[in-house]
């Protein structure tokens, strides 16, 4: 399968990428690892006339500490997140989630910014960011703004990214030593989660239980008021209306959310 023809331009910095986005407008899509965009282009589900390659923009990659937060450049690859000693110490849930994305080859190319901007509700990193209470930095012609993970995802493959904006960095609160749980139910190696659960410090996030990654708020409230993990997990699917597909119907997904939440809360790392 061959994508529709397009023009290719490379940005050498975030500012350059923003300029190129302004110049090309709706015609342009940003390309980093390309592991969400290129498959869509090969299937002709997307046919952007211009690709702006940000993978060589030096100020968009790397992992550093800024006060109480870990700052991760948008083009940081899953493999780098999974193997980073800094991430493994300060936000081990995120390193673990990154180690479960796709397969090794995909982790050598895919990036955290790409995964978050793509906003697949079944994906690992959007759920992890919601559980961690992280945020994203969005950079546009007027400067940068920060959006909390809880507010960033607005619908199925939709986010608050505005026209002309670039997801430039990800911020995650440093939580060294905090107990966390992570559960992902798949039928085959390499698959997206049929349902996923990430839990840390009383926050519980669910993947593939709605059109966006969501918090299991009823279960969180139960935990906060002294319920046992098993009691709280019974409320994990409360108020959800997950989609149905070839893998699971609504009832099965809700069952999985309860079971996986119990496992996540009972098997903390």
């Amino acid at each position: 399968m061959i994508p529709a023809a397009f023009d290719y331009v490379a940005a050498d910095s975030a500012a350059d990428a923003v300029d190129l986005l302004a110049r090309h407008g709706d015609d342009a899509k940003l390309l980093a690892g390309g592991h969400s965009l290129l498959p869509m282009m090969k299937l002709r589900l997307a046919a952007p006339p211009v690709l702006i390659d940000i993978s060589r923009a030096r100020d968009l990659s790397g992992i550093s500490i800024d006060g109480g937060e870990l700052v991760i450049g948008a083009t940081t690859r899953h493999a780098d997140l999974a193997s980073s000693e800094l991430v493994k110490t300060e936000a081990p849930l995120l390193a673990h989630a990154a180690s479960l994305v796709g397969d090794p080859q995909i982790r050598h190319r895919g990036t955290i910014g790409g995964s978050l901007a793509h906003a697949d509700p079944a994906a690992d990193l959007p759920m992890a960011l919601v559980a961690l209470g992280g945020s994203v930095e969005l950079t546009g012609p007027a400067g940068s703004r920060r959006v909390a993970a809880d507010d960033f995802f607005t619908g199925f493959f939709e986010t608050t990214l505005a026209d002309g904006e670039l997801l430039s960095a990800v911020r995650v609160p440093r939580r060294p030593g905090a107990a966390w749980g992570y559960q992902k139910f798949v039928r085959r190696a390499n698959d997206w989660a049929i349902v996923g659960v990430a839990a840390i410090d009383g926050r519980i996030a669910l993947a593939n239980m709605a059109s966006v990654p969501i918090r299991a708020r009823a279960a969180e409230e139960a935990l906060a008021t002294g319920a046992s993990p098993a009691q709280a997990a019974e409320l994990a699917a409360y108020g959800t209306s997950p989609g149905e597909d070839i893998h699971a119907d609504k009832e099965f997904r809700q069952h999985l959310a309860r079971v996986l939440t119990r496992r996540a809360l009972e098997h903390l790392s």
Partner: protein
Amino acid sequence: MMHVKLTVNGEQRSDDVEPRLLLVHYLREVCGLRAANIGCDTTSCGACTVLLNGESVKSCTVLTAQVADQDVVTAEGLAPDGELHPVQQAFRDEHGLQCGFCTPGMVMAAVSLLKENPAPTEDQVRQGLEGNLCRCTGYHNIVRAVLAAAAQSAGSRAEVTA
């Protein structure tokens, strides 16, 4: 068309390509290197796996434009002088192939895996080859081959140390 320079199997190349030219098509059709196969064409099967800067990637999901100025190695590049790479030799010794279609991708994925983890457990080998499918289902011998290659490398490292 755009101009790209890159290294393929140690050789400096310079070619005019369409921006949409996928790396696997570049390798097969422009360079004439046919080891990387096109299997699923959807980033699932791993038959097109090559090394990019020493790491395994699926060349059906990489644009040639994206790898300009970088280093690509295909299975042909593992044995430039005809002497098999230890992983290739192990696949041969352990009968790590049946029809052979997945083999170049499996070998490249295994080379990348052993570079990151020179002494993997059997479970780590199985997890590490998660991105490669063998439709003959010959996984047992493939895993055995990768473990044998790791053991052999450990042996040669010990010899060098001694």
